[in-house]
């Protein structure tokens, strides 16, 4: 955070008072895109004159924007997929435990982070879709399925695609859907009541 008092107030038409305070808050976005609050306590001494406190917030996005080529994001995706793959394999030793979901939670978080980190990269849409499918298969009690080794193996195969390809195409995403759907790992949407039929009944 840059705490230097600049002379920007001098250039304005507003008269500058002795006690005016100016602060520049610089938010530098790193390559990991994590959010961190920046706070500063400014003591304003009591005075008879009006005291202007001017905060200028400046977002420096260079670091984030310069690390955004699709080739780079592809490499990062392969790296993350590899780590998730390892985490999934690690579930095997906890598969019999009652608190199995506690061990699944970090996997879900890792998948969420991987999705978030590639949100703005157009070329990573298909990998994101595969990760979303895997994430969805883990939610709402879906983790119970992951006690079965054949499920873990099938999902690891999907992660292999993310790990081994320079570009993941739509066909890979479709195959991932089919594979998870075939094993009944995807959550089913609740059935909508047949409005027409209900109307007839009530009438």
């Amino acid at each position: 955070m840059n705490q230097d008092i600049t002379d920007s107030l001098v250039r304005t038409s507003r008269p500058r008072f002795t006690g005016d305070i100016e602060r520049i808050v610089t938010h530098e976005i790193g390559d990991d895109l994590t959010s961190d609050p920046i706070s500063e306590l400014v003591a304003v001494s009591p005075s008879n004159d009006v005291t202007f406190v001017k905060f200028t917030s400046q977002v420096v996005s260079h670091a984030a924007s310069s690390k955004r080529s699709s080739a780079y994001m592809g490499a990062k995706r392969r790296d993350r997929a590899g780590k998730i793959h390892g985490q999934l394999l690690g579930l095997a030793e906890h598969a019999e435990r009652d608190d199995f979901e506690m061990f699944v939670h970090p996997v879900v978080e890792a998948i969420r982070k991987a999705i978030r980190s590639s949100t703005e990269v157009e070329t990573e849409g298909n990998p994101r879709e595969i990760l979303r499918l895997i994430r969805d298969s883990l939610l709402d009690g879906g983790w119970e399925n992951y006690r079965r080794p054949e499920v873990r193996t099938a999902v690891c195969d999907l992660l292999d695609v993310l790990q081994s390809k320079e570009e993941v195409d739509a066909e890979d995403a479709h195959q991932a859907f089919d594979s998870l759907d075939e094993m009944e790992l995807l959550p089913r949407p609740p059935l909508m009541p047949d409005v027409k039929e209900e109307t007839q009944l009530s009438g």
Partner: protein
Amino acid sequence: MFKEQPDRCLVTAQCRFAPDIGFAPKLSAALVCGHKASKMPHWNYNPQRGLLRDPKKKTILLADHQVLQLQTMGITPWLERQERHTEVLRKMLAEYDVSECTMTHLEITAFFHLAMSHEEIVDLFFDTMIPTRDSFAPLCGTPYDAALRVFGESGDKKIEAEMMPMTADQAKAAFAGIPNIDQFREDRFESELVAWRDRVAKDCLYVKMVAELEGVKPQDVPRFFRESTEELNRRATRIVRKLKKLPLESVDKQ
């Protein structure tokens, strides 16, 4: 990988041999032989050193009392005429009466454009080629760049691999610093060299691969260069795939 980006590679093939006090007539005889066999149109000669040049095919050949060195700008002039080039070297070694080379050396330098910024390449370089940034912090503060040079053995051959993320300016300077690069100029405006320099001058991964073998007989020189070219190409492909976190097994299947 060299074959995928042929216009960003430079090749140096070298045969070293024991010097002989009576080298002067042998040198000129070897140059005459090399000139005929290679059909390179331009030559330059002084009693210590001879040079054959074919700027259009981006090839030069240098000879002195203990080295024969063939250089090409781009890997295509090397691959397309490899048999002829190595045969020229073999014939010239015969003119020198060399029974065994003290060292045969193949060096392929590449400025691989990976469609990534220098910053990105550096970021991937840590944790793929070398340990993470954090582990270097006690040694040099926050690392922002890195280079790696590894020496190894493959059978009888010695292999050297040097890799370094480069900014456009660094690549430009490294290209200008390549030995004998000015000999490739085609005309007084050096348009070809300028085009090369501009092509190379991008954020890139600089890779220098070297294969060396001692005691190669002249008749085995073509085989050494043929096998080493393939091997270095395979290893360079692995370097790039490793940096991009792609599996290496597919390279071995090729």
